[in-house]
């Protein structure tokens, strides 16, 4: 049986870190900011979350710690790009390199330490997975059916017009970046506390970058992000199952699957967006552009 209940649970669990980080980045990008530092915020969340869970013995405190650390790191990005008007691509990269370095430096004492046990939840699905699933409709509702969401999208589509209407472009974006950071940190903490159950250097292994690709795949919509994260979770679980079944393909080649799948998905979606006539599923108009208020 390819898809039984345990496999589905594995898929859900594998998809959760990507889902959380990609949902956060969706909010950030809908506000017109491209934060390439997701990987750095995730790995920081993974270490801070693990450290907090280990110190308190409580996974809940760990997840909180991961979210706070992710948000704190994202504020460096916010300060640089929103107040010092630096290039978002370069700053995001710097955030990733910094996060990877920082965690490698402070993570040493936690190597080989076990994480406290995760409590189960309804249907054998832990409550962080539930939270991720619940956030999908919530974020969709907030983005599309509330005034705050409308302002956020206005800022992302055309920051000059939003500014002329009197919206605080900078404030909205800083808030979006911080929320994105918190969700990326939470996703990272999920990797260390709930899936791998320990800390190892560089353990997020590109999950942050995959999350960035999934936001594009999703056409900047939370429901699309859910589909993308499940697709990714499915490929990961399938790959692990094939490894376990002893398929005659070397493990190293099988483990390329998630990355190759991400490229494939990115190509298919980009092609569709390139040749599509309608504007739905297109990137926010001001994505990645620096906003400097002249008046």
């Amino acid at each position, binding site marked *: 049986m390819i898809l039984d209940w345990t496999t589905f649970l594995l898929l859900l669990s594998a998809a959760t870190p990507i889902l959380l980080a990609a949902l956060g980045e969706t909010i950030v990008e809908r506000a017109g900011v491209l934060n390439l530092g997701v990987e750095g915020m995730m790995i920081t969340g993974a270490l801070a979350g693990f450290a907090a869970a280990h110190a308190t013995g409580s996974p809940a405190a760990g997840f909180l710690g991961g979210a706070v650390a992710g948000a704190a790191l994202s504020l460096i990005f916010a300060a640089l790009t929103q107040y010092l008007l630096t290039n978002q691509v370069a700053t995001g990269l710097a955030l990733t390199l910094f996060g990877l370095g920082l965690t490698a430096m402070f993570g040493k004492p936690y190597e080989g330490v076990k994480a406290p046990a995760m409590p189960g939840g309804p249907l054998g699905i832990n409550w962080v997975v539930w939270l991720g699933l619940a956030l999908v409709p919530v974020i969709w509702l907030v983005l599309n059916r509330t005034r705050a969401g409308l302002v956020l999208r206005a800022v992302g589509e055309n920051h000059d017009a939003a500014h002329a209407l009197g919206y605080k472009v900078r404030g909205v974006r800083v808030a979006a970046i911080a929320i994105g950071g918190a969700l990326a940190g939470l996703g990272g903490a999920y990797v260390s506390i709930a899936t791998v159950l320990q800390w190892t250097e560089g353990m997020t292994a*590109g999950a942050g970058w995959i999350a960035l690709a999934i936001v594009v795949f999703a056409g900047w919509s939370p429901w699309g992000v859910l589909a993308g994260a499940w697709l990714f979770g499915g490929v990961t679980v399938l790959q692990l199952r094939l490894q376990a079944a002893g398929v005659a393909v070397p493990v190293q080649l099988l483990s390329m699957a998630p990355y190759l799948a991400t490229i494939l998905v990115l190509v298919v979606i980009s092609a569709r967006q390139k040749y599509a006539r309608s504007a739905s599923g297109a990137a926010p108009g001001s994505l990645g552009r620096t906003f400097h208020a002249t008046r």
Partner: protein
Amino acid sequence: MLRLEPRTAAPWWLGLAAPVLAVLATMLAGGLLFALMGFDPVAAIRTIFWDPLFGPAAGYSRPQLLVKAGPLVLIACGLAVGFRAGIWNIGAEGQYIVGGICGAAVALAAYPAEGAWIFPAMVLAGAAGGWAWGMIPAVLRNRFGASEILVSLMLVYVAQKLAAWAAFGPMRNPEGFGMPGSRNLQQYPPAANPELIAGTGIHWGVVAAGVAVLATWLLMSRHIRGFHIRAAGMAPRAARFAGVRPEALVAFCLGLSGALAGMAGLFEAAGPGGQITDSFGSGYGFTAIIVAFLGRLHPLGILLAGLLLALTYIGGELAQLMLSLPAATVQVFQGMLLFFLLAFDTLTRFRIRWGKAA
């Protein structure tokens, strides 16, 4: 209140001051970090930035400077060309790994043959491998509009798995008692990339880096393609009217930076590294991004920036040995350096004014 006012033209010295200020600020912030961690900040900074050049063990560490700077400069020269055009090759690390694998494959296929053709063929194979790996994001962007940032980055992870597969599988040393990793190319003279002048650390990769600095400088300042690249980066629409084909630029920039990164990988595999292992990628491809920015995307600046970051590598190792500082200190330094550089760069683009706008 503080506010930023765009400059129409920056004084020439500001462009040079920003990297210098960024380095000083990194030293200060780094010292603070060390102090918080309970190390003597002055000793730590001196060990990282001064001792490798002038300390008691400088005789050993000075040649290492060129060994480390070689690949950084070689890769960064290619990256800077693309960054100038707004084409973001973030996957140089992957192109470096694939170049190393392809070059080493030639050597292992030729083993134990003798012949002067072997090393040049390896260099070509390394460049071709890196070029091909760089062309994947180029083709996918041109044909389908896929982001070259994400595709080139995903390919880093794919390349790492490829290196692991090669080290455990087809390229494993048959006389290596089952240990993963290829034959050591330094023990196979026709394929080795030795130190050319004893005690300097100069190997063929360092020579290639020097050539790359000169060649990219000529390209960017004297050749029509360099003009196109600069035009496309500053004003894409205007560049299109001037007859620049964006697709051709994407292919050129990603291909060039891929080929240079691939060559850097080969020189490392045949020289200081000596073999393909599952951990062949050493982060040079990512550090080279910082080198490119710190060097202001200018070949001469890249040369200086490459030497400085090479210094942090060696100094970091020394500090690990002498003061038992964590090994990842260097990475933190490099990340901070890029942050400070981007922050101080604001000063070259904007004037800081007090008070409300006029």
